[in-house]
């Protein structure tokens, strides 16, 4: 009997044929049903009926987040509203929210995509999935939920918040798979420890499927050591579906794209040129079988690369590297582009500090001042002021040479950097608009 997992090891030729068929249909469907695409293709002189290879798609213009905003709420929908079963919205922290619509079929493929995380971990009906992503318009909660149900797990819809209750339920119900943001997983572990509960001994967790924010390898290792489980990175975005567009397998060496549902390209964000495998750039996605809100060449603003070569797990779907930041998380400091992930890379070479941090941007006169707040580890011997000054100086030098911009390092008391229950607040911009 054919199982839904079988597509994950399909031969490349079969996958690519499926992608080409899907992409052709999506482009025509968008042109015929979404006025935005009709105008866009006519203006650009792109013939949606002339796509005969996957490379032909490169002639199609991009879709941007702004395009989706301009068509708020329902103008990007390619099906009549009677066929739409669910709506999700992006958080809209940077302006008007973007809307995703889901038909019954769309919800089914979403569950299928997220369920892959469970299948990668050899999970299924024997597992208890604890979901503490927020339920609601945010795609995290329900996306993970549909995946849990699809994979046959006993799925607990905890949603976010009430950390002590989360911990009690996790212990009493023997949750084996945890789905939430990585920073919330860390907060859960730290809170459990402060309640006198050792997650390694009293939780049955074996896998965490964590996403919605970037986290460093060092942060992952801390988390795995504290909880005694394996962390799989999950990627997704409301604009194309939600979490599950790509998920890591147990090799933890890149995230397998759901290539039977999404066609991925990596482009140079400046020129728009498609880059060869292995090169870092902006991920661009085209939906293959999305009904309600299909997108063609959607610019995700996420920085990654296609990992060349095959994965040791034997699955044929290509992998993207762990996210290197977002084109819009990028900080411009005195004209220099800085990604928070570059700061994390420097931080992990210092064992005197923990992986929590916050970047504070202020302005002194007309000059941007960047302060990196970090917390000391328990075993850091800080008895002499000199030891702290030396750490600050070393970190500042290392940051300067890695980022080409001066950053002031400030050591703050443990747990004084706010722990968030949703996305971690890594950057606080106090510069204002007055200068």
């Amino acid at each position: 009997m054919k199982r839904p997992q079988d597509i994950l090891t399909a031969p490349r030729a079969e996958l690519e044929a499926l992608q080409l068929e899907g992409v052709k249909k999506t482009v025509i469907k968008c042109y015929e049903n979404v006025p935005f695409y009709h105008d866009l293709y006519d203006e650009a002189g792109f013939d949606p009926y002339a796509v005969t290879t996957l490379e032909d798609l490169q002639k199609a213009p991009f879709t941007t987040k702004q395009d989706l905003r301009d068509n708020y709420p329902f103008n990007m929908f390619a099906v009549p509203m009677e066929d739409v079963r669910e709506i999700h919205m992006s958080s809209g922290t940077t302006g008007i929210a973007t809307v995703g619509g889901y038909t019954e079929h769309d919800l089914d493929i979403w569950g299928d995509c997220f369920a892959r995380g469970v299948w990668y971990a050899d999970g299924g009906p024997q597992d208890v999935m604890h979901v503490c992503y927020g339920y609601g318009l945010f795609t995290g909660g329900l996306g993970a939920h549909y995946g849990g149900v699809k994979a046959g797990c006993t799925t607990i819809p905890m949603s976010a918040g009430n950390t002590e209750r989360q911990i009690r339920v996790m212990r009493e119900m023997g949750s084996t798979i945890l789905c939430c943001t990585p920073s919330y997983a860390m907060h859960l572990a730290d809170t459990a420890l402060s309640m006198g509960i050792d997650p390694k001994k009293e939780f049955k967790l074996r896998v965490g499927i964590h996403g919605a924010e970037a986290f460093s390898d060092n942060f992952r290792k801390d988390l795995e050591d504290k909880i005694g489980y394996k962390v799989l990175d999950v990627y997704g975005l409301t604009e194309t579906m939600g979490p599950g567009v790509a998920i890591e397998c147990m090799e933890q060496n890149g995230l397998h794209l759901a290539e039977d549902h999404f066609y991925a390209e990596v482009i140079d964000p400046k020129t728009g040129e498609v880059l060869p495998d292995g090169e870092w750039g902006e991920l661009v996605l085209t939906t293959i079988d999305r009904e309600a809100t299909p997108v063609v060449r959607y610019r995700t603003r996420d920085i990654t690369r296609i990992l060349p070569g095959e994965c040791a797990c034997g699955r044929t779907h290509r992998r993207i590297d762990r996210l290197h930041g977002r084109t819009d998380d990028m900080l411009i400091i005195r004209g220099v582009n800085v990604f928070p992930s570059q700061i994390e890379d420097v931080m992990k070479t210092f064992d005197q500090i923990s992986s929590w941090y916050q970047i504070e941007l202020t302005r002194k006169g007309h000059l941007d001042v960047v302060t990196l707040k970090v917390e000391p580890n328990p075993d850091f011997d800080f008895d002499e002021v000199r030891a702290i000054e030396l750490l600050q100086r070393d970190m500042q030098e290392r940051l300067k040479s890695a980022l080409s911009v001066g950053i002031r390092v400030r050591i703050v008391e443990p747990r004084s950097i706010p722990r968030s229950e949703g996305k971690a607040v890594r950057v606080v911009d106090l510069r204002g608009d007055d200068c």
Partner: protein
Amino acid sequence: MLEQVTVFLENEKGRLSALTRVLADAGVNMYALTIAETSDYGLVRIVCDKPAQAVDALRSADMRAIVTKVLAVAVPNRPGGLADLLDAFEELDLNIEYGYCFSVHGDEAVDVLKVSDAPRACVALADKGYRLVDTADLA
């Protein structure tokens, strides 16, 4: 050697009072407290009767606290007491990172010093007839 508690505190209102309240609640009695301050943070150094319990209590309150071994020397409580002691260090060519003095009995003061080579300093000072002080001596 004396066990000193060192606490990292941010240089902000209320932090020192929070620290002393934690120690009070843990039943820790302090003999001496000094602060090395910078504009961002301070290092609070404490000599007390129960250093290990003090560190545990502070850590449970989410403060960074460590036990540091420092040299504590009994010196005569008269002019020149510390000067004579420091002369001894000059001969040893040892660096003193920081120090402070406190008085516990009328005729004797305790000088606390963090030095670069504590074991060598201990031997040399004992040879010169100095008495070294540890936590138990202060009770």
